[in-house]
């Protein structure tokens, strides 16, 4: 109790923010995030995702437990840090969400429409995909990001993602690179990761998906990048498209070696 009181005394003696900008503001935002780090509602999504993974669904009542996320049938642990990757059975590179949809169609025999239904949830309409993504990504916590670009199709996806990263277009002439290719840049008070800088790329990639306090939902990487497209003044990408997967590939490779730590909690 004494301790709390003394912390408080320390706090009230701190200089008020008025008129101060830049680093002190960002320090306080860092503190805000730190205070929220304990007790991430994403855990609730992880719990629901695990149930959904094991739940028998579809006309033949099959669970996703036999889904091959790249490390063999049913292996969830460590699967995410190696995605996106080349899958021989479909002869293409898939990210987690594309692969989940594939399993829902091939294993659970859902129609393609059913398999991609509600990719992004809302209060009254929760997304099974976001919950599954939370569960699967959580099973890679503490592991190193290690995507492969050895297969020619993986290499091609990486190159395509890189090209797209620098592609300027739309009403505002923006590319991803406009805001994410220099160190220590900010939009308003929001720090922008330099995705060409390994440390920034690792810190960013290792903390998605995330529970977004502004939306009250766990958001996947596909959602994050779709929203980037919107803010970039680009048209709307189809859910789980190859372009976005290529961009994820580029980001994942740049983040190689980072310790995965998500679902995280973000603004």
């Amino acid at each position: 109790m004494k301790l709390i009181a003394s912390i408080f005394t320390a706090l009230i003696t701190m200089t008020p923010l008025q008129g101060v900008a830049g680093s002190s503001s960002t320090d306080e935002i860092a503190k805000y995030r730190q205070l929220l780090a304990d007790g991430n509602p994403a855990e609730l999504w992880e719990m629901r995702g695990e149930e959904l993974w094991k739940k028998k669904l579809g006309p033949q009542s099959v669970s996703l437990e036999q889904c091959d996320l790249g490390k063999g049938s049913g292996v969830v642990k460590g699967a995410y840090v190696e995605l996106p990757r080349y899958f021989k059975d479909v002869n293409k590179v898939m990210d987690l969400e594309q692969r989940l949809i594939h399993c829902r169609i091939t294993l659970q025999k859902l129609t393609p429409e059913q398999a991609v239904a509600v990719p992004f949830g809302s209060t009254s309409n929760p997304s099974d995909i976001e919950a599954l993504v939370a569960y699967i990504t959580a099973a890679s916590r503490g592991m190193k990001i290690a995507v492969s670009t050895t297969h020619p199709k993986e290499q091609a996806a990486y190159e395509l993602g890189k090209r797209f990263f620098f592609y300027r277009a739309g009403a505002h002439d923006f590319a991803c690179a406009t805001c994410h290719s220099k160190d220590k840049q900010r939009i308003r008070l929001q720090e922008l990761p330099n995705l060409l800088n390994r440390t920034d790329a690792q810190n960013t990639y290792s903390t998605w998906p995330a529970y977004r306090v502004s939306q009250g939902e766990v958001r996947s990487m596909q959602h994050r990048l779709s929203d980037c497209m919107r803010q970039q003044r680009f048209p709307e990408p189809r859910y789980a498209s190859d372009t976005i997967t290529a961009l994820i590939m580029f980001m994942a490779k740049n983040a190689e070696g980072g310790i995965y730590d998500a679902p995280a909690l973000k603004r």
Partner: protein
Amino acid sequence: MFDSDKKGVQVMDQGRRNALRMVSALGLVCAGSLLGPIRALAGEWQANSFEAKGLANALKELGVDSYTMSSEVSVISAEIAENGAVVPVSVGSAIPNTEYMAILIEKNPNPLSVAFNIPEGTEAAFTTRVKMGETSNILALVKANGKWFAASKEVKVTLGGCGG
């Protein structure tokens, strides 16, 4: 990424702000006060105190005539909240026999947010998260030995920035 505009974010928050405003405008701050203050007992949800408009009314509904600012009461939060919908708050009291604590957001149209009745053996220290419509003081209100104490901390609610 480029979602740094105030307007855009306000759109999202506006609903809630209107909401809060409407509750007060509807005059749900009701006749209860005419019957004299009713103390909010935890476990029993008191509309009068939760729907009271403005800090003075909320305190009145809680039966607080006056309180003393005390350095033994603490409110910990960030100076700046990135999003007013989720503001982390820790409140604590080092005053012996603290039996009740409440968190009030001064500038929210309905200031009372949450209240704790503190059974013996439970520490007078809680962490939770509250919604704030705008920059405001957060007040930690404490009842101990029949007296009221408080501490407050200002939290600035900023809007804008990209998604990180």
